[in-house]
């Protein structure tokens, strides 16, 4: 079975609530069948609105959404056959776990026998076999979460939407649930559209991530690409940590460019700059800058250590480098004897390839 590349398709979708501000602007997004796509972005970036439009609880102001090539804007939510896991689980508090799971099957008029079979299967999928007769209120947060996932999957929907489903869980539980949801997705191959503002969650779980800001998709790519090769300074800032330098392009070639800062100059990789004189923000991941590099690197600078914070597995070092006193380094905790002491001057080096000259902030 070949997978459809545009199983879910947003085409030129605009959304406005008040006729003045566009919450979603000209959104174009294709989601492949069986894919796990995460919409990631700060609150108010329009990601939940997109999900609600897909679920049918909001209508696009302009444009169309297609599900398996059928326009769905005029189909009411209950006929779309899209499963949804809500932020606060939205389990029906007056029904048992079994009744909650049986609900979508009952409204589809399945036989009692089929219902029992399907509910059993769904519950064992989330390893809650013996909990069928409990009330949701008697379950822990993680268990409720699993019931919500099972309920969204029990009627075999083509697409499952998840709206920050792990937001209310504590850190450890959240991590184990991330893996669990990921495994369920891998096992049954359902298309998942997942919304979160937690980048760690997005990076762990997704096939592809759509980074939202200001009603637009800033970048849609796989997690590694998103981290290694952000296309603009918002993505670089939002995903992971990065050190930035604001400056002006003074020289440019195919592979490299020179960026003139207030103090000094660095060699960078021109991503979104085209010509000399353009303003730019250079972004360098903390782990790409090394202390006293052994190999030859085309950027070498001296920096003064202003703060050292011990983190167990690594040490964070804040430096003042080229006039940027917020330059962060992550030094792995190893036996390497580096001279990391407050006030010391150290050599820092990085490759121009890892210093990405992006749009100015």
């Amino acid at each position, binding site marked *: 079975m070949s997978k459809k590349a545009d199983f879910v398709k947003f085409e030129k979708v605009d959304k406005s609530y008040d006729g003045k501000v566009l919450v979603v602007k000209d959104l174009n997004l294709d989601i492949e069948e069986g894919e796990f796509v995460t919409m990631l972005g700060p609150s108010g970036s329009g990601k939940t609105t997109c999900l609600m439009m897909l679920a049918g609880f909001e209508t696009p102001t302009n444009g169309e959404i297609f599900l398996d090539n059928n326009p769905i804007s005029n189909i*009411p939510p*209950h006929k779309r056959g899209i499963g949804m896991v809500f*932020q606060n689980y939205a389990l029906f508090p007056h029904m048992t776990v079994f009744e909650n799971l049986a*609900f*979508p099957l009952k409204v589809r008029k399945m036989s009692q026998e089929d219902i029992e079979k399907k509910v059993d299967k769904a519950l064992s999928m989330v390893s809650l076999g013996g909990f069928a007769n409990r009330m949701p209120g008697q379950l822990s947060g993680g268990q409720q979460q699993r019931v919500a996932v099972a309920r969204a999957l029990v009627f075999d929907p083509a697409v499952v939407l998840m709206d920050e489903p792990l937001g209310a869980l504590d850190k450890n539980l959240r991590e184990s649930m991330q893996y669990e949801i990921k495994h369920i997705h891998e096992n049954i191959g359902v298309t998942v559209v997942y919304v979160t503002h937690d980048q760690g969650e997005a990076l762990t779980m997704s096939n592809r991530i759509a980074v939202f800001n200001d009603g637009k998709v800033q970048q849609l790519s796989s997690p590694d690409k998103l981290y290694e090769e952000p296309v603009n300074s918002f993505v670089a800032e939002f995903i992971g940590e990065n050190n930035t330098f604001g400056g002006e392009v003074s020289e440019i070639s195919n592979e490299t460019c020179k960026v003139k800062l207030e103090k000094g100059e660095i060699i960078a990789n021109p991503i979104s700059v085209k010509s000399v004189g353009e303003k730019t923000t250079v972004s360098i991941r903390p782990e790409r800058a090394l202390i006293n590099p052994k190999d030859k690197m085309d950027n070498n600078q001296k920096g003064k250590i202003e703060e050292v914070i011990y983190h167990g597995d690594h040490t964070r070092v804040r430096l003042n480098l080229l006039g940027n006193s917020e330059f962060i380094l992550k030094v792995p905790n190893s036996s390497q004897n580096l001279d990391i002491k407050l006030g010391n001057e150290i050599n820092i080096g990085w490759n121009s390839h890892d210093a990405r000259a992006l749009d100015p902030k």
Partner: protein
Amino acid sequence: MSSETGKILTTDGIPLEESLKQAEKKNKIKAFLLVAPLLLFLIITYMIPIGDMFSRSIDDKMVTNMLPKTYKAMETWDGKELPPEEVFEAFYLDYKILVKNKTAGKLQTQLNYEKNGFKSVLKKLARKQKKFEEGNYKEQIMKVHKRWRNVEYWRAIKRRAPSYTYSKYLKGVDMYSNEDGKIVQVSEDRRIHRILWIRTVEVAFFVTLFCFLMAYPIAHLLATLPMKYSNLLMICVLLPFWTSLLVRTASWMILLQQQGIVNDFFVWTGLVADDNRPEMMYNKTGTYVAMTQILLPFMVLPLYSVMKTISPSLMRAGKSLGATPAIAFFKVYFPLTIPGIGAGCLLVFILAIGYYITPALVGGASGTLISNQIAYHMKSTLDWSFASAMGLMLLTGVLVIYWIYNKLVGVDNIKLG
């Protein structure tokens, strides 16, 4: 190890339990003192009046105290035939004192309750007894009026011997204990209270139903509208609440009377002929309309407070799982509002069952309720013990409803806010 070591001691060597009690004693006293004024207020304004009402409703000492000698003499009388001379003599002596003290009227009224026509017999006796000679009172009394020869009248006196009676309660349900001491119904044309009880329950039931039907959509709207609109709507719900009850009832009178605005409107639309305006007031219709409007906020508020807590994502979840909006409403939303429905209905029903002013003003003859009857006996007939008895019957009825409700729905499920 001895059992002594089993007791946990504080570092000062005092048993822990004792130490804890000591430490919490102060707080307990403080807490009690804080609630004491309220407790006192409740006892004075609630418990004592109810106790007083109860003792009034069963108190029958008046006659007993007025005829002490008679009842002493009657102790041995079996009530089958006319009582012996001693009873007549005792009655004469008792009655003589009453006439002298000018309190015979009360006895006449009381005994007349027991046996119709007793008043005139007693009045005649009051006039004649002055000329009585000593001895053979039986003959003399029987000579005053031939009814004294009727054993029924003597039995009527005897029936009033106990200091306590439940006759007022029987009267409240149109029954009485007859000459033989059997409990029977009053004659059909005099059964007025039972009609009133049934009507009261009926009006309370329908007012509750109408309130529920009207309040549910309002409360839902209140709970789901954005803040700025819901606040305005809330004020609209509460505004009548802040207006005097009398003003509201009076405005309904203006609206509903035969030459009133509603009737004018009907005539204008051609729905009814000008000379055939329907009567919407001074009957049950008026009571229904005005009471529903007045009690509506009591239904809206508990419903609203419950609906406010129901997350809108539940309905969305229902729809996303494939339920049509109607099914999602009845399977998901409605069951979750039951605590509010229970609270609202109980509140409105209990308020409606004891409603007074509105039925009194707009109810007319066919729209008055049991509370109006109670008021009538308090103000007009001055039969306070009967009014007390009916008041207590009403209170008992409400408690029974509450008890049934608790059995059916559970009071824990009530949410008033």
